[in-house]
């Protein structure tokens, strides 16, 4: 146990570490399920008690600790709550980290997630990364297509990638993005060196950063055959970007330009508002000698994903599309249950992320919100 952590936090941490060690890809057993439920309800009670706006939100929905039958009934806060409210259990000024969503330059328009400490956050990110991206070794040379965390103190992504370098980076690990953009020449040199020396590398970055890299490589005609064991992690979409590239197209290009086989290209899904990442299962599967299977994202033992109908808040029938609800025991500082704006559906061993719920094209002559805001030069997160 960790004497420097509050009791609940210490128990959550201990349980997460245990659960990570006993991680069963087939899903939690009955005992693990019961323990998850118990901890989730306990954490809910604590957040209800100390997170005042969240308590009000729950009361409006008639949900109270002690009166809910199970973790499924914990009210999930929509993402906009992180913008409109200060959803912090502890005094915001005492937070060890405040991660903010990107987008608007006006801080009051950005979602903020407060973390009183990052022990649970770290435990979550390390366990998932090791399990899904680095099951075969302790360390690997990490080439990061993102700025170092010191340059972006409020970016959860920068923190995440920086922490991965601290925890798993072998000598030669480095960051290749700064205010001036992607350092293509430096990165190309690092790739050439890895190829020449036969050193497997792990590339980390946003999907969009990779598009820049691939464009540059295509322009110069360069390509690499990275040594076996090299792998690539990408995240995120292209919201607000001028180009959209499908995941399949990207992976094909990773194969062509970098020599990384398809299953070793792993996508993960994460958000500022939660403290857990969800990885493609392909790399671990092929490492275990299994068929990589269809692209599915896995849910770690300390989190659950529900898929709900936004009109009713109730779960959709199995396999149908709906909005994702995260229930994340690592999201200790704000709310463990979060309603995302992402659409997906559940599968037997995880879920499929289908993308953001875009405003659908208005029928006929009335105007879609997006169209008008665009025409108006208006803001949207």
């Amino acid at each position, binding site marked *: 146990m960790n004497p420097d952590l509050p009791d609940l936090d210490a128990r959550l941490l201990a349980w997460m570490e245990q659960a990570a060690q006993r991680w069963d890809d087939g899903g939690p057993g009955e005992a693990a399920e019961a323990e998850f439920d118990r901890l989730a309800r306990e954490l809910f009670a604590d957040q209800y008690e100390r997170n005042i*706006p969240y308590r*009000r*939100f729950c009361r*409006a929905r008639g949900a109270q600790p002690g009166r809910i039958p199970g973790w499924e009934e914990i009210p999930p806060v*929509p993402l*906009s*709550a992180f*913008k*409109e*409210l200060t959803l912090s259990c502890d005094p915001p000024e005492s937070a060890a980290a405040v991660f903010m969503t990107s987008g608007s330059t006006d801080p009051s328009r950005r979602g903020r997630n407060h973390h009183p400490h990052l022990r649970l956050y770290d435990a979550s990110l390390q366990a998932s990364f090791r399990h899904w991206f680095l099951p075969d070794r302790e360390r690997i040379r990490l080439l990061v297509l993102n700025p170092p965390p010191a340059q972006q103190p409020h970016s959860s992504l920068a923190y995440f990638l920086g922490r991965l370098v601290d925890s798993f980076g072998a000598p030669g690990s480095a960051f290749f993005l700064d205010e001036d953009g992607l350092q293509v020449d430096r990165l190309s040199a690092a790739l050439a060196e890895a190829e020449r020396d036969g050193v497997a590398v792990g590339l980390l970055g946003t999907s969009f950063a990779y598009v820049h890299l691939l464009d540059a490589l295509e322009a110069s005609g360069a390509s690499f055959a990275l040594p076996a064991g090299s792998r690539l992690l990408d995240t995120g979409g292209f919201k607000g970007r001028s180009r959209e590239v499908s995941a399949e197209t990207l992976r094909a290009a990773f194969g062509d330009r970098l020599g990384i086989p398809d299953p070793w290209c792993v996508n993960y899904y994460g958000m500022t508002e939660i403290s857990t990442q969800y990885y493609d299962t392909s790399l671990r599967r092929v490492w275990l000698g299994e068929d990589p299977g269809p692209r599915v994202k896995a849910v770690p033992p300390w989190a659950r994903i529900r898929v709900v*109908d*936004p*009109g*009713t808040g109730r779960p959709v029938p199995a396999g149908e*599309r*709906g*909005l994702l609800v995260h229930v994340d025991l690592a999201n200790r500082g704000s709310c463990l249950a979060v*309603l995302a*704006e992402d*659409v997906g559906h559940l599968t037997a061993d995880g879920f499929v992320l289908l993308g953001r*719920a*875009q*405003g*659908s*094209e*208005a*029928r*006929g*002559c*009335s*105007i*879609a*919100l997006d*169209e*008008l*805001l665009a*025409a*108006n030069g*208006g803001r949207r997160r």
Partner: protein
Amino acid sequence: MTPPSSDVVDAFFLPQLDPAELAALEWTTRQVGTVPLRFPVVTPPLVEQLCDRLLQAQAEELAERPVMEVLEVLGRAVARWFDPRCPQRVLAEELLPQITGYAPEMVRRGLKEHLRTFRRDRLLRFLAQDFDNPLVLDGFHPNRAGGRSRAYGPRLTTQFFAGNVPGLPAWNLVCALLVKSATLGKSAGAEPLFPVLFAGTIAEEDPGLARCLAVLHWPGGQEDVEETAFTRSDAVMATAGLRATESLARRVPVGMPFVPYGHKVSFAVVGHEALALNRYADTARRVARDVSQYDQQGCLSPHAVFVERGGGVDPRAFAAALAAEMERYERSRPRAAIGLEESAAIAGVRARYEFRSYDADSGVQVLTSPHGNAWTVLFEERPERFEPSVLNRLVRVHPVDGIEDVVAQLQPLRRYLQTAGIACAPERLDAWASLLGRCGADRICAVGQMPQPAAGWHHDGLGSLASLVRWTDVEGAAEAAVERYDPEWTQPASRPDRSRR
């Protein structure tokens, strides 16, 4: 709910083709809502063939037919729809709710109210609105400049119909026929049936006139088909979203009249007089109807209601009354089932306002349907700016101290404003209309009548007929000058025969 019909329904109108030609087409069946609809697969050669025949029919049936005769036929065809046994009406009332998901009662009443706009006497108003003398459509008649003018409609107009509100295509079809244009109509994917049924009643009244109409469906943006249509048309009229309109605007040949309708925003303004204790509930009922009709999908539907302070009830109480009326409307005419994205959009907006309402000083209140997301009234005292609704019966209520406050909110949207539903004392009508018109509104109507524009309305600020025609003027001086060439003066002079005198 009526059980979904299992019979495949024909969703095309092609009287130009004989049965053998129809049989030779490639066919496809697509389920829209719960109704399987059959369409021909549209190809450039088919469009070419249809355009040729439409042009021929226009020359034979329409070009020289007096406008009043066309009007009489249309008036009789529309009158058929007022008979509850009219087969096309029966089909529309049965199938359109299944196709669109709209409440059957709403479709029934909506169609009836909309089609009234085209009774024979109202059709005269369409003509009168745009032409001092409608006979200019038949021949040259004196103009104010001292000469004579004639208005020629397009021989053929390619039309892109709306699918958001059943019945809307009647407006476009009627306008084209009144200026003697044949129509190649592309029906909307969301509701492709109404224009077919409407054309059917015209065919029963006058098969010759109906040969000037063709209605089919192709996926919007199918460029080879559209290019074939454009090169044979004299005009293009489209009711479509911003992206589709932009795409069309790029492809319509330069110089060809292109009449786009679309992406418009409407709103209501309620003056303090309409909030009197003996008026406010009725006002709320009217506004609720304007918002709820066709689930707010029409460009005529209000996105926001500006409510003046200083009435018998304050704006917050009015918002509560509006919420009660929204619920009442929902019970008799429930909103259509909506998709995941639309649901998510409503949930997102509701959440945002709910969180703001936690701050007692925010001046925000969220009023919602007791279950699900059937309707939402958002009371907001200090909006940052006019925010368009995400639709499906979600409306904002903003208190104001006078029409000037409304004007300030509307300024950024001036290119997109359309209908302003108003409720105020008679003395203020003119001042309000002037200010709202200056802001960009092109229709001022009473609250409660927003979904039903009057016959002849300058749709989106343009003359519905005038925007289609081109003029030919015979100059007055020419009429005088040609006197010089009167044969009596130009034939060789013959000696007067004195013996006859």
